[in-house]
């Protein structure tokens, strides 16, 4: 029983949480965001199969997302036109098949080389597919895309998947299955060999595995899961257009995975949830939200390259030996200073935005409900003080946190050793 729980406990809890979430957040906006999160979790985990597990930095992963979506849309339209007895719940398999086939096809070209060359090839192929999509109008529908109607398919147990709530459950179910499958994949010998190819392709070759073949397999499987994510997007939005397989979508998945953390399995999940939430929340508040994302991304790359999950993981030994209290005050200080810096930065960005892009609306604006005039000196001075002062304090606090972390880690290692020698 204990063994069963330790293996499947996490998945059971995840299933229960996914089932209960609509009870907690039942609003229309919450449901659409959670559906979006579900497909983005699959998409970013599939991307991490490449970047995190196999060490392949791809700049064209949205190709499989988009193709999966387009094939799914066409499958739905064909099923509806032919009145075939195929329920909506199995239609994502069409996306998976498309992802698999195109993953194999494009993987054959792109996985011949690793490293930087691979990145550029994927970039080129991504552009190739995205531009071709605008030429092949019959399949991709040109600029306006291809639409579908998910309620035209045969209902299953009386469910026609019209309401967003039913679609959420469909996405949640596919998300759970895909996440479990991808996790299981990391535990297989194949998953381990992927890690070996990532860390040292030469040695992997010496123990008898062809790195190119491993990269190819990983690429293909990653395409399969990205195809599922795209199919779910097609079901959710009931429309696919060429933008879904372009550079912006490929960039978004890199953002999610890297902010979440590439080194751990859970990282991309955290990243997908956080970035999707920020996208929904920020795009409501400011139209410069993409600038914030760019800055957040650069900040993560510069200061926290292991991502949020990596940062959390580093606290684990402290938690185990009850040393966390040594570092928490420093973290709180760094967090506070960071928030002050962000406030100063966003005040400056918003005022600049008002004076340039929205010059027609006049200099009077509100920031966090405080009315101010963007042409007067005072708010700019406040922004500068917050930015410089907060930034300076943040760098100091970050250094102090690092030192505190090192001493606490040493203390917890010593405590762990003492436990072991006593026992």
């Amino acid at each position, binding site marked *: 029983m204990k063994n069963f729980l330790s293996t499947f406990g996490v998945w059971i809890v995840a299933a229960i949480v996914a089932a209960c979430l609509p009870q907690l957040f039942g609003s229309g906006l919450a449901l659409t965001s959670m559906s979006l999160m579900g497909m983005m979790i699959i998409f970013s985990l599939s991307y991490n199969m490449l970047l995190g597990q196999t060490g392949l930095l791809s700049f064209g992963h949205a190709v499989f997302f988009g193709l999966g979506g387009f094939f799914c849309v066409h499958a739905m339209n064909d099923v509806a036109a032919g009145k075939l007895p195929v329920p909506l719940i199995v239609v994502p398999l069409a996306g998976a098949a498309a992802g698999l086939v195109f993953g194999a096809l494009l993987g054959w070209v792109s996985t011949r080389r690793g490293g930087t060359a691979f990145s550029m090839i994927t970039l080129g192929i991504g552009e190739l597919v995205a531009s071709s999509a605008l030429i092949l109008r019959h399949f991709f529908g040109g600029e306006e895309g291809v639409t579908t109607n998910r309620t035209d398919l045969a209902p299953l147990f009386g469910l026609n998947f019209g309401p967003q709530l039913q679609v959420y459950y469909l996405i949640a179910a596919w998300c759970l299955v895909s996440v479990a499958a991808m996790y299981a994949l990391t535990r297989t010998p194949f998953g381990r060999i992927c890690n070996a190819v990532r860390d040292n392709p030469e040695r992997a070759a010496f123990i008898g595995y062809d790195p190119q073949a491993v990269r190819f397999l990983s690429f293909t499987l990653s395409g399969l899961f990205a195809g599922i994510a795209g199919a779910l997007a097609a079901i959710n939005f009931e429309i696919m257009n060429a933008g879904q397989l372009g550079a912006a979508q490929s*960039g978004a998945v890199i953002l999610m995975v890297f902010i979440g953390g590439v080194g751990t399995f859970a990282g991309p999940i955290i990243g997908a949830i956080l970035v999707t939430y920020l996208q929904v929340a920020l795009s409501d508040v400011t139209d410069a939200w993409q600038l914030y994302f760019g800055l957040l991304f650069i900040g993560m790359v510069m200061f926290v390259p292991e991502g949020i999950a990596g940062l959390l993981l580093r606290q684990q030994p402290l938690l185990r030996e009850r040393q966390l209290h040594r570092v928490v005050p420093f973290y709180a200080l760094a967090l506070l200073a960071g928030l002050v810096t962000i406030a100063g930065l966003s005040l400056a960005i918003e005022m600049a935005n008002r004076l340039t892009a929205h010059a027609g609306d006049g200099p009077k604006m509100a920031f966090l409900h405080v009315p101010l005039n963007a042409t007067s000196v005072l708010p700019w001075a406040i922004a500068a003080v917050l930015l410089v002062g907060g930034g300076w304090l943040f760098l100091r606090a970050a250094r102090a946190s690092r030192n505190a972390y090192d001493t606490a880690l040493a203390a917890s290692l010593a405590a762990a050793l003492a436990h072991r020698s006593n026992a």
Partner: protein
Amino acid sequence: MLEILFISTLNGVLYGMLLFLMASGLTVIFSMMGVLNFAHASFYMLGAFFGFEISRRIGFWPGLVVAPLLVGAIGMAIERYGLRRVHRHGHVAELLFTFGLTFVIQEGVEMVWGKLPVDYRVPPSLDFPAFTAFSTNYPAFKMFELLTAIAIFAVLLLVVRRTRIGLIVQAALTHPGMVGMLGHNVDRIFMLVFGVGAGLAAVAGVIAGPALVTQSNMAGLLGPILFVVVVVGGLGSLGGAFLASLLIGLLQTFAVASNASLAGLLGPLSPSAKQQVFLADIWNVTVAQVAPILPYLLLVLILIFRPRGLMGRRES
């Protein structure tokens, strides 16, 4: 026919030289630091917008000098305070850092200048036809672009081949450790090269801006093609980058000027009505419409048949 041939060749060489102005910096930065600078096309865009802003206030000629210097300084600052810091986290982090920069620069440009094209005009002193070939007036500004690009290319070649600085840069490409031992500040050399590369891209922006469209998406449109140039030419090879720039410049210009399609070419052999539904797109598309994807097709072909590029030496 001869007219199209002549004008297209001229335009193709011009486009190729502009590509080379950027690709040269990109490939040198790559072979020195091992980092592929995603933001390189963004420097080109910054050059164009700075040039526009300066030409609006002072004039085109000061812009041609000041804008590249400004962008070069920005590039050096980015190398000094950003890239060097990220360097210890490895190549992936460096690549992603420059990738994030493209976002920030694009958003910044959109915030200041908006998403619509700006009115960046050819300076009046160059706004006349240089010569009339057959019946087409060839604008003087395009000749000026071509000559500027060739002049910079010649100066670059001289500096790299004939001067002491060029010697040190060449040595630092392959043996940075040894160059450091000999008492040169390798970090500063890297910073300088990065700045010069950014400045060269900005020159391309200043002179291409009035002829092409100066808009916030110009970096996104050009960036991938630059990468194609660098890969097709062979990573880290200046000669290869030159060849590939001209090749792609000519390829695209000629494709745009051509109106051929499979349907026209194989007229009587067109597929039956039933097949036509599926093949209509491929059948009727003209070469001009396919022009944007030709560089990427070339990339895929090169990778299949000659993975190290036209003149590359390394496999990885």
